[in-house]
């Protein structure tokens, strides 16, 4: 019997901790907005929200606190994973993606596009020349030009094979320009 009281006692302490933490947490704008939209509550709704729900929640926490701890742990772990996934999904060129140093003249000489029907401008990168000139104009002072290649996964989980050029200045690898952005997926999309 003493183990049961000890178990419930620990649950009570844990429940108090949860209560204090929630009481300290500022109300979100969304919950305030929802409350303002809801208007006046009936007496039944008030009893449900202010008495019954907290009472049931407290009983659950005190009696099943190990499960609640596991649930909170899982939620926090998922939040961290989601934050990392979103961070990884923002494309950036990494040092390991760099292939080789080059120059504007070398790149331009190798990037002309030929077409027998003359359906492309006689400029570096053809129809994408404006993107190239824009990239060149954004060169940070003293930065050097590198080519890069990498695989990248978007926020939606699609994998892309990417190639391009990037301005490198010390540890800074930016801005970059893509010359290839091929989705590596089934064509049923």
């Amino acid at each position, binding site marked *: 019997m003493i183990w049961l009281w000890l178990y419930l006692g620990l649950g009570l302490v844990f429940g108090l901790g949860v209560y204090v933490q929630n009481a300290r947490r500022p109300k979100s704008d969304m919950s305030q907005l929802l409350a303002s939209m809801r208007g006046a509550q009936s007496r039944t709704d008030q009893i449900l929200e202010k008495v019954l729900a907290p009472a049931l929640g407290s009983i659950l926490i005190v009696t099943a606190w190990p499960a609640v701890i596991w649930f909170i742990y899982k939620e926090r772990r998922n939040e961290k994973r989601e934050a990392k996934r979103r961070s990884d999904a923002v494309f950036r060129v990494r040092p390991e993606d760099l292939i080789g140093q080059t120059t504007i003249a070398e790149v331009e000489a190798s990037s002309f596009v030929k077409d027998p029907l003359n359906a492309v401008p006689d400029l570096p990168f053809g*129809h994408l020349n404006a993107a190239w000139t824009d990239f060149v104009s954004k060169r940070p002072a003293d930065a050097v030009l590198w080519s890069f290649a990498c695989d990248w996964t978007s926020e939606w989980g699609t994998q892309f094979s990417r190639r391009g050029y990037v301005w490198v200045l010390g540890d800074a690898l930016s801005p970059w320009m893509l010359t290839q952005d091929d989705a590596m997926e089934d064509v049923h999309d």
Partner: protein
Amino acid sequence: MTAQISEQLIFEGQKVPLLTNPLNNYFSLGGRDPGFESTSTALWRGYVGTWEILNDRMYLVALNGTLKSGEDADLESVFPGFAHRVFAHWFSGTLRIPQGKRLEYVHMGYSSTYERDVLLTLQNGVVVKQEIRHNGVGDEDAPEGYSIGGMTTRPSRKANHGDDQ
């Protein structure tokens, strides 16, 4: 997302539906996007491009749509100075051309399936591989060819301006 109106491809002398949007690649590589207005849930991209495979090279030969300014879009809206034909050198990937009866209708993007898919693999706008994928045999009463089930249309800004006058 509603099932989408396809692009058009002139392939082996016939105009066929194309379930790939090669202009997406152009925009993702930094190509100029004039800003298309979506006037239908079945055309979120706001335009329909007509492409042509000629001597194993892919060209964009027409573009129909509406710009956010209300003007009609054409080839020169995206490729100034190229009113009739644009070599799609930026595109590397697979073009999907559906053929035969519909196996399953999915009211989302280009997700519906058909008896066959002609798959053209391109590298920098040039066809390097062609294959046919067999997906199954459709029911006797299944509809033939690419179609979409329904859409909601919105008046374009140009139409709105017209109404105001």
